[in-house]
Protein backbone atom coordinates (compact mmCIF):
# COMPACT_ATOMS: atom_id res chain seq x y z
CA UNK A 1 0.00 0.00 0.00
CA UNK A 2 1.46 3.42 -0.99
CA UNK A 3 1.74 6.40 1.34
CA UNK A 4 -1.12 8.16 -0.42
CA UNK A 5 -3.32 5.07 -0.02
CA UNK A 6 -2.50 4.87 3.69
CA UNK A 7 -3.39 8.57 3.98
CA UNK A 8 -6.65 7.89 2.14
CA UNK A 9 -7.60 4.97 4.38
CA UNK A 10 -6.63 6.81 7.58
CA UNK A 11 -8.53 9.99 6.65
CA UNK A 12 -11.68 8.10 5.69
CA UNK A 13 -11.46 5.86 8.79
CA UNK A 14 -11.10 8.82 11.20
CA UNK A 15 -13.77 10.93 9.49
CA UNK A 16 -16.18 8.02 9.44
CA UNK A 17 -15.47 7.11 13.07
CA UNK A 18 -16.31 10.65 14.22
CA UNK A 19 -19.51 10.80 12.18
CA UNK A 20 -20.52 7.27 13.20
CA UNK A 21 -20.13 8.15 16.90
CA UNK A 22 -22.49 11.11 16.38
CA UNK A 23 -25.01 9.03 14.43
CA UNK A 24 -24.83 6.26 17.05
CA UNK A 25 -25.86 8.73 19.79
CA UNK A 26 -29.01 9.68 17.84
CA UNK A 27 -29.92 6.07 17.02
CA UNK A 28 -29.35 4.98 20.64
CA UNK A 29 -31.59 7.78 21.91
CA UNK A 30 -34.57 7.00 19.66
CA UNK A 31 -34.02 3.25 19.83
CA UNK A 32 -34.00 3.20 23.64
CA UNK A 33 -36.89 5.61 24.18
CA UNK A 34 -39.11 4.72 21.18
CA UNK A 35 -38.63 1.61 19.05
CA UNK A 36 -35.50 -0.34 18.18
CA UNK A 37 -37.02 -1.99 15.11
CA UNK A 38 -38.16 1.32 13.59
CA UNK A 39 -34.86 3.07 14.46
CA UNK A 40 -32.85 0.24 12.89
CA UNK A 41 -35.10 0.35 9.81
CA UNK A 42 -34.19 4.04 9.52
CA UNK A 43 -30.49 3.16 9.81
CA UNK A 44 -30.85 0.50 7.08
CA UNK A 45 -32.70 2.84 4.72
CA UNK A 46 -30.10 5.61 5.21
CA UNK A 47 -27.23 3.17 4.67
CA UNK A 48 -28.81 2.00 1.40
CA UNK A 49 -29.26 5.63 0.29
CA UNK A 50 -25.60 6.40 1.06
CA UNK A 51 -24.40 3.27 -0.76
CA UNK A 52 -26.53 4.26 -3.78
CA UNK A 53 -24.98 7.76 -3.79
CA UNK A 54 -21.43 6.32 -3.73
CA UNK A 55 -22.27 3.70 -6.38
CA UNK A 56 -23.89 6.27 -8.68
CA UNK A 57 -21.37 9.11 -8.36
CA UNK A 58 -18.17 7.04 -8.07
CA UNK A 59 -17.98 5.90 -11.72
CA UNK A 60 -19.08 9.35 -12.92
CA UNK A 61 -16.21 11.02 -11.03
CA UNK A 62 -13.58 8.49 -12.11
CA UNK A 63 -14.50 9.04 -15.77
CA UNK A 64 -13.38 12.72 -15.60
CA UNK A 65 -9.96 13.69 -17.05
CA UNK A 66 -7.35 13.43 -14.27
CA UNK A 67 -6.45 17.15 -14.12
CA UNK A 68 -10.10 18.24 -14.03
CA UNK A 69 -10.80 15.62 -11.36
CA UNK A 70 -7.84 16.81 -9.25
CA UNK A 71 -8.87 20.46 -9.39
CA UNK A 72 -12.48 19.59 -8.43
CA UNK A 73 -11.51 17.08 -5.75
CA UNK A 74 -8.68 19.25 -4.42
CA UNK A 75 -10.90 22.31 -4.22
CA UNK A 76 -13.74 20.48 -2.51
CA UNK A 77 -11.43 18.71 -0.04
CA UNK A 78 -9.84 22.05 0.82
CA UNK A 79 -13.20 23.72 1.41
CA UNK A 80 -14.28 20.81 3.64
CA UNK A 81 -10.91 20.41 5.32
CA UNK A 82 -10.60 24.09 6.21
CA UNK A 83 -14.07 23.97 7.79
CA UNK A 84 -13.14 20.92 9.89
CA UNK A 85 -9.83 22.52 10.86
CA UNK A 86 -11.31 25.91 11.75
CA UNK A 87 -13.95 24.34 14.00
CA UNK A 88 -11.40 22.03 15.62
CA UNK A 89 -9.07 24.99 16.31
CA UNK A 90 -11.95 27.02 17.77
CA UNK A 91 -12.90 24.09 20.01
CA UNK A 92 -9.29 23.58 21.07
CA UNK A 93 -9.12 27.27 22.03
CA UNK A 94 -12.38 27.01 23.99
CA UNK A 95 -14.26 29.30 21.59
CA UNK A 96 -16.71 26.68 20.40
CA UNK A 97 -18.56 24.12 22.46
CA UNK A 98 -17.16 20.60 22.20
CA UNK A 99 -19.49 17.77 21.23
CA UNK A 100 -20.95 16.32 24.40
CA UNK A 101 -22.39 12.97 23.30
CA UNK A 102 -24.02 12.33 26.69
CA UNK A 103 -25.80 15.70 26.59
CA UNK A 104 -26.85 15.19 22.95
CA UNK A 105 -28.18 11.73 23.89
CA UNK A 106 -30.23 13.17 26.76
CA UNK A 107 -31.60 15.98 24.57
CA UNK A 108 -32.59 13.53 21.81
CA UNK A 109 -34.18 11.16 24.33
CA UNK A 110 -36.18 13.99 25.90
CA UNK A 111 -37.38 15.11 22.47
CA UNK A 112 -38.30 11.52 21.58
CA UNK A 113 -40.35 11.11 24.78
CA UNK A 114 -42.10 14.44 24.14
CA UNK A 115 -42.98 13.44 20.55
CA UNK A 116 -46.21 11.72 21.61
CA UNK A 117 -47.27 8.18 22.38
CA UNK A 118 -45.47 5.28 20.75
CA UNK A 119 -47.54 3.34 18.22
CA UNK A 120 -47.66 -0.42 18.81
CA UNK A 121 -46.27 -1.19 15.34
CA UNK A 122 -44.05 0.91 13.08
CA UNK A 123 -42.86 4.12 14.77
CA UNK A 124 -42.50 6.85 12.16
CA UNK A 125 -40.74 9.22 14.57
CA UNK A 126 -37.99 6.74 15.45
CA UNK A 127 -37.56 5.80 11.77
CA UNK A 128 -37.34 9.41 10.57
CA UNK A 129 -34.94 10.62 13.27
CA UNK A 130 -32.63 7.61 12.82
CA UNK A 131 -32.80 7.94 9.01
CA UNK A 132 -32.01 11.66 9.05
CA UNK A 133 -29.26 11.25 11.64
CA UNK A 134 -27.43 8.53 9.72
CA UNK A 135 -27.98 10.15 6.31
CA UNK A 136 -26.77 13.60 7.36
CA UNK A 137 -23.76 12.32 9.29
CA UNK A 138 -23.00 9.81 6.54
CA UNK A 139 -23.31 12.24 3.64
CA UNK A 140 -20.04 13.91 4.51
CA UNK A 141 -18.29 10.55 4.80
CA UNK A 142 -19.77 9.48 1.44
CA UNK A 143 -18.38 12.69 -0.01
CA UNK A 144 -14.91 12.02 1.44
CA UNK A 145 -15.03 8.39 0.23
CA UNK A 146 -15.97 9.57 -3.26
CA UNK A 147 -13.43 12.38 -3.61
CA UNK A 148 -10.48 10.56 -2.05
CA UNK A 149 -11.36 7.26 -3.70
CA UNK A 150 -12.09 8.65 -7.16
CA UNK A 151 -8.89 10.66 -7.29
CA UNK A 152 -6.75 7.62 -6.59
CA UNK A 153 -9.12 5.20 -8.35
CA UNK A 154 -9.52 3.42 -5.00
CA UNK A 155 -13.20 3.98 -4.18
CA UNK A 156 -13.41 0.38 -2.91
CA UNK A 157 -10.51 0.93 -0.47
CA UNK A 158 -12.09 4.17 0.78
CA UNK A 159 -15.47 2.46 1.18
CA UNK A 160 -13.82 -0.43 3.05
CA UNK A 161 -12.11 2.01 5.47
CA UNK A 162 -15.48 3.68 6.08
CA UNK A 163 -17.19 0.31 6.59
CA UNK A 164 -14.49 -0.78 9.05
CA UNK A 165 -14.96 2.44 11.05
CA UNK A 166 -18.71 1.83 11.24
CA UNK A 167 -18.11 -1.75 12.46
CA UNK A 168 -15.70 -0.54 15.16
CA UNK A 169 -18.10 2.16 16.38
CA UNK A 170 -21.17 -0.08 16.30
CA UNK A 171 -19.22 -2.82 18.11
CA UNK A 172 -18.12 -0.36 20.79
CA UNK A 173 -21.67 1.01 21.04
CA UNK A 174 -23.20 -2.45 21.44
CA UNK A 175 -20.60 -3.32 24.10
CA UNK A 176 -21.02 -0.05 26.01
CA UNK A 177 -24.79 0.39 25.45
CA UNK A 178 -24.29 4.11 26.03
CA UNK A 179 -23.14 7.03 23.84
CA UNK A 180 -19.40 6.91 23.19
CA UNK A 181 -18.67 10.06 25.16
CA UNK A 182 -15.00 9.24 25.75
CA UNK A 183 -13.97 9.18 22.09
CA UNK A 184 -11.55 12.13 21.56
CA UNK A 185 -13.75 13.61 18.85
CA UNK A 186 -12.06 16.99 18.60
CA UNK A 187 -8.56 15.52 18.27
CA UNK A 188 -9.86 13.22 15.53
CA UNK A 189 -11.58 16.12 13.79
CA UNK A 190 -8.35 18.10 14.00
CA UNK A 191 -6.45 15.24 12.30
CA UNK A 192 -9.15 14.84 9.62
CA UNK A 193 -9.04 18.59 8.95
CA UNK A 194 -5.26 18.44 8.54
CA UNK A 195 -5.46 15.43 6.19
CA UNK A 196 -8.28 16.83 4.03
CA UNK A 197 -6.57 20.23 3.75
CA UNK A 198 -3.18 18.66 2.94
CA UNK A 199 -4.47 16.28 0.25
CA UNK A 200 -6.75 19.02 -1.11
CA UNK A 201 -3.80 21.39 -1.41
CA UNK A 202 -1.64 18.73 -3.05
CA UNK A 203 -4.17 17.52 -5.62
CA UNK A 204 -5.65 20.95 -6.30
CA UNK A 205 -2.24 22.43 -7.14
CA UNK A 206 -1.31 19.43 -9.31
CA UNK A 207 -4.61 19.64 -11.18
CA UNK A 208 -4.05 23.36 -11.77
CA UNK A 209 -0.71 22.60 -13.42
CA UNK A 210 1.80 22.96 -10.57
CA UNK A 211 4.51 20.37 -9.91
CA UNK A 212 5.41 19.67 -6.29
CA UNK A 213 9.12 19.36 -5.49
CA UNK A 214 9.73 15.64 -4.93
CA UNK A 215 6.39 14.61 -6.45
CA UNK A 216 4.22 12.48 -4.11
CA UNK A 217 6.93 12.70 -1.42
CA UNK A 218 5.94 16.36 -0.98
CA UNK A 219 3.00 15.07 1.06
CA UNK A 220 5.52 14.07 3.74
CA UNK A 221 6.27 17.78 4.17
CA UNK A 222 2.78 19.16 3.48
CA UNK A 223 0.94 17.11 6.14
CA UNK A 224 3.32 17.95 9.04
CA UNK A 225 3.48 21.54 7.77
CA UNK A 226 -0.30 21.96 7.91
CA UNK A 227 -0.37 20.26 11.33
CA UNK A 228 2.31 22.59 12.74
CA UNK A 229 0.58 25.72 11.41
CA UNK A 230 -2.83 24.57 12.72
CA UNK A 231 -1.44 23.77 16.19
CA UNK A 232 0.35 27.14 16.24
CA UNK A 233 -2.89 28.91 15.30
CA UNK A 234 -4.77 27.05 18.06
CA UNK A 235 -2.11 28.11 20.60
CA UNK A 236 -2.13 31.74 19.46
CA UNK A 237 -5.94 31.77 19.63
CA UNK A 238 -5.92 30.23 23.12
CA UNK A 239 -3.40 32.80 24.32
CA UNK A 240 -5.42 35.64 22.75
CA UNK A 241 -8.59 34.43 24.46
CA UNK A 242 -6.87 34.19 27.86
CA UNK A 243 -5.32 37.63 27.41
CA UNK A 244 -8.61 39.27 26.32
CA UNK A 245 -10.59 41.48 28.72
CA UNK A 246 -13.25 39.48 30.56
CA UNK A 247 -16.18 41.13 28.76
CA UNK A 248 -14.89 39.91 25.41
CA UNK A 249 -14.63 36.25 26.35
CA UNK A 250 -17.86 34.32 25.97
CA UNK A 251 -19.00 32.72 29.21
CA UNK A 252 -20.76 29.96 27.28
CA UNK A 253 -18.77 28.64 24.36
CA UNK A 254 -20.92 28.98 21.28
CA UNK A 255 -20.55 28.50 17.57
CA UNK A 256 -19.09 31.86 16.60
CA UNK A 257 -19.46 31.27 12.91
CA UNK A 258 -23.12 30.41 12.95
CA UNK A 259 -24.93 27.13 12.43
CA UNK A 260 -22.92 24.84 10.21
CA UNK A 261 -24.62 22.49 7.77
CA UNK A 262 -21.79 20.05 8.19
CA UNK A 263 -21.31 18.37 11.50
CA UNK A 264 -17.54 18.49 11.65
Amino acid at each position, binding site marked *: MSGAEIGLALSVFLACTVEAVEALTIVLAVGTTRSWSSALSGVGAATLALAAIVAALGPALTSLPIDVLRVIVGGLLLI*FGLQWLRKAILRAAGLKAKHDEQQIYEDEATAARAAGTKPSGFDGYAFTIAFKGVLLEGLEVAFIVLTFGANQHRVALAAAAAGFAVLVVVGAGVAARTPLAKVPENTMKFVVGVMLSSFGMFWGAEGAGASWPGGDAALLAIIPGVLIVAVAMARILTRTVHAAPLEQVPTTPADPAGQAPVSA
Partner: protein
Amino acid sequence: MTRVRGFPLAVWEFVVGDDWRTAIGVALALALTALVAAAGVSAWWVMPLAVFALLALSLRRAMRGVSRRG
Protein backbone atom coordinates in the same frame (compact mmCIF):
# COMPACT_ATOMS: atom_id res chain seq x y z
CA MET B 1 -41.18 24.30 -7.20
CA THR B 2 -39.90 24.94 -3.68
CA ARG B 3 -38.05 21.61 -3.82
CA VAL B 4 -36.49 22.54 -7.16
CA ARG B 5 -35.16 25.75 -5.64
CA GLY B 6 -34.32 24.06 -2.36
CA PHE B 7 -32.00 21.41 -3.84
CA PRO B 8 -29.29 23.74 -5.21
CA LEU B 9 -29.46 25.68 -1.95
CA ALA B 10 -28.99 22.48 0.07
CA VAL B 11 -26.02 21.46 -2.15
CA TRP B 12 -24.52 24.96 -1.74
CA GLU B 13 -24.90 24.82 2.06
CA PHE B 14 -23.48 21.28 2.21
CA VAL B 15 -20.42 22.06 0.09
CA VAL B 16 -19.66 25.68 0.98
CA GLY B 17 -20.80 25.51 4.60
CA ASP B 18 -20.92 28.55 6.82
CA ASP B 19 -17.91 30.40 5.40
CA TRP B 20 -18.42 31.25 1.73
CA ARG B 21 -15.39 33.56 1.75
CA THR B 22 -13.07 30.59 2.30
CA ALA B 23 -14.71 28.70 -0.58
CA ILE B 24 -14.24 31.70 -2.90
CA GLY B 25 -10.65 32.03 -1.67
CA VAL B 26 -9.92 28.38 -2.50
CA ALA B 27 -11.32 28.84 -6.02
CA LEU B 28 -9.23 32.00 -6.53
CA ALA B 29 -6.09 30.29 -5.21
CA LEU B 30 -6.55 27.41 -7.66
CA ALA B 31 -7.08 29.90 -10.51
CA LEU B 32 -3.94 31.81 -9.51
CA THR B 33 -1.96 28.54 -9.38
CA ALA B 34 -3.16 27.72 -12.90
CA LEU B 35 -2.18 31.20 -14.14
CA VAL B 36 1.30 31.07 -12.59
CA ALA B 37 1.86 27.53 -13.91
CA ALA B 38 0.66 28.55 -17.37
CA ALA B 39 3.22 31.37 -17.34
CA GLY B 40 5.93 28.74 -17.03
CA VAL B 41 6.82 29.69 -13.45
CA SER B 42 6.98 27.20 -10.56
CA ALA B 43 3.53 27.42 -8.94
CA TRP B 44 3.48 24.89 -6.08
CA TRP B 45 4.00 27.59 -3.41
CA VAL B 46 0.75 29.40 -4.21
CA MET B 47 -1.58 26.91 -2.52
CA PRO B 48 0.23 26.59 0.85
CA LEU B 49 0.42 30.40 1.19
CA ALA B 50 -3.22 30.78 0.20
CA VAL B 51 -4.45 27.98 2.47
CA PHE B 52 -2.66 29.29 5.57
CA ALA B 53 -3.89 32.83 4.85
CA LEU B 54 -7.47 31.61 4.32
CA LEU B 55 -7.42 29.63 7.58
CA ALA B 56 -6.03 32.60 9.53
CA LEU B 57 -8.63 34.97 8.04
CA SER B 58 -11.45 32.51 8.73
CA LEU B 59 -10.36 32.20 12.38
CA ARG B 60 -10.09 35.98 12.65
CA ARG B 61 -13.66 36.37 11.39
CA ALA B 62 -14.83 33.76 13.90
CA MET B 63 -12.99 35.57 16.73
CA ARG B 64 -14.65 38.86 15.78
CA GLY B 65 -18.03 37.15 15.89
CA VAL B 66 -17.30 35.94 19.43
CA SER B 67 -16.10 39.38 20.55
CA ARG B 68 -19.27 41.00 19.21
CA ARG B 69 -21.48 38.51 21.04
CA GLY B 70 -19.40 38.49 24.20
